[in-house]
């Protein structure tokens, strides 16, 4: 785990990011709605930044901008100090290729594909040959706990947790440095969620991965993130190391988010007789 020495350059920095959507149109008046307002943050190599906030606060828009699924209106996204916002997708190095994992693996995976086809897709796009594709798919599936015998199985036959593993394998297959996890653990059973969270922690330790972890579940973010940024109405209203956010939250939004997580913990501790 890297520390905040201040000497090392950040792996990812986002500066002055803005994004507007237009509401209305056709017959109504077109009103621009600000989804992101002047977003600044950094993530160091191998660190996890947890992004929390209520639904509609702009977390997903920010995630999509960082993963270059969405184009920001203004601002810079720098990887290793170089602005990648203008660089064409095909010229991005694997270090610059940010991979995204979504909440619903069911809708982010083509049901007609076999497991191997799902995982090899990013390699196909990069024009890799069949031999090396097969090797890399096997390695990625192995790393995410999916047996190689399942390569020919239809993605439809996988359970919710297995599909999320498949989505992680697909993201890892091109060896990215940064994964954007947009509610990647939401909607799973508590036991499956624990398994996938452990997998992500193990992969991070093994490959020094950097995570941008987005979730409305503060409990999970507190557990996995080195630093936390709190979003409200398109802005980052508070950010800092996890321990500091936990012990001395400044903003009302942060305090509210933490309170609901603490209530859940206390209710449960009261009935089970203490925490772990």
């Amino acid at each position, binding site marked *: 785990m890297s520390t905040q020495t201040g000497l090392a350059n950040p792996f990812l920095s986002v500066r002055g990011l803005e994004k507007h959507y237009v509401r209305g149109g056709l017959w109504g008046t077109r009103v621009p709605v600000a989804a992101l307002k002047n977003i600044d943050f950094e993530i160091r190599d191998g660190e996890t930044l947890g992004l929390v906030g209520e639904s509609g606060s702009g977390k997903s828009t920010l995630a999509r901008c960082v993963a270059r699924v969405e184009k920001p209106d203004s601002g810079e996204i720098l990887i290793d100090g170089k602005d990648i916002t203008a660089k064409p997708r095909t010229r991005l190095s694997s270090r610059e290729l940010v991979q995204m994992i979504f909440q619903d693996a069911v809708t982010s995976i083509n049901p007609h594909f076999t497991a191997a086809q799902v995982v090899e897709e990013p390699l196909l796009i990069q024009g890799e040959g069949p031999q090396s594709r097969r090797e890399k798919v096997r390695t990625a599936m192995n790393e995410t706990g999916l047996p190689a015998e399942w390569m020919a199985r239809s993605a439809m036959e996988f359970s*919710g947790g297995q599909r999320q593993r498949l989505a992680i394998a697909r993201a890892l297959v091109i060896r990215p440095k940064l994964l954007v996890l947009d509610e990647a653990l939401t909607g799973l059973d508590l*036991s499956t969620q624990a398994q996938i969270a452990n997998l992500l922690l193990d992969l991070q330790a093994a490959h020094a991965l950097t995570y941008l972890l987005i979730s409305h579940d503060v409990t999970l973010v507190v557990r996995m993130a080195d630093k936390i940024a709190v979003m409200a109405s398109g802005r980052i209203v508070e950010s800092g190391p*996890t321990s500091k956010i936990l012990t001395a939250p400044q903003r009302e939004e942060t305090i509210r988010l*933490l309170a609901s*997580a603490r209530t859940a913990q206390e209710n449960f501790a009261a*009935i089970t007789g203490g*925490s*772990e």
Partner: protein
Amino acid sequence: MQGTSEFLLEVRGLSVTYLPADGIRIHAVDDLDFACAAGEVVGILGESGCGKSTLANAILQLLPRHALCGRGQIFFRGNDLLRVAEPELRNIRGLGISLVPQDPALSLNPVIKVGLQIDEVLRAHLALRSKERQVRIRDLLCEVGFDQPNEISSAYPHQLSGGQRQRIVIAQAIACKPSLLIADEPTSKLDAPLQTEIIALLARIRRDHGIAIVIISHDPALFAGFADRMAVMYAGRIVEAGDTPRIFRQPLHPYTQALVQIAKSTFNVSASQSRRRFAAIGGELPNPAAFPAGCRFHPRCPERMEICEQRDPQVFLPLPLQPVRCFKYGD
């Protein structure tokens, strides 16, 4: 057909099998016993795919055509629902038992105002005049926590938030004052603060009207302080049941122990926990088309013994009123 049940709802030896077109039989619920007294809250805990929703749909007799309730009885107020004719069932649903579905976005009609959708329930079951129904709809909306019932009543589902839609389906469910609510993962689509609100609402409804609630979830935290009793389901069976506080303090089945441990480890908001792995159980639920021989949990069980691979454990009673299906407690 009259039973001798002292419970409002009593399920005895129920088995539900799906017979899909490809011919592979899936035993979703197997020899299951379960009961709920009047005014009681009972939680059913289990991972997705363990048969929880099949049980809920079997109680309401809303299973798809290719599902077969092969054996068992479901007594509601002494009548076996498996032997009640459809017209009578239509009256029991809504008036006697009603369902709070998992995803209100799917169960509400997107092109009908929500007030009218509550009205539909009232018209189907009660002989009330239009004026009386309007008053009733307003009261119901207030009861589920809306300050401005008139505005909400004329809104379409898409104009409401997820939490508001969940309140609407709860209003539908209690519209005819049933004696039993079945809540199938009522909060799984909501974030933590909203979950707490919905559970508080259900607790108030139980207190004010004495409506019994069977709540189904994969999250044991929902039951803490809400469910009087709980049953833990694994691979189509109840593996442990008892008073909720007692199960949480002293879980007997290794599966229950693991679930409680996972919840404790997950709901731990302190800085010292940073980047520490979560407690977890390895493996996944077995395929219901091919359960393993012996105890169905044995492939994942940290305490499995030789006998667990050979024989199916019966129900043991190591503590009073806490039945458990595990060879640790007898053989």
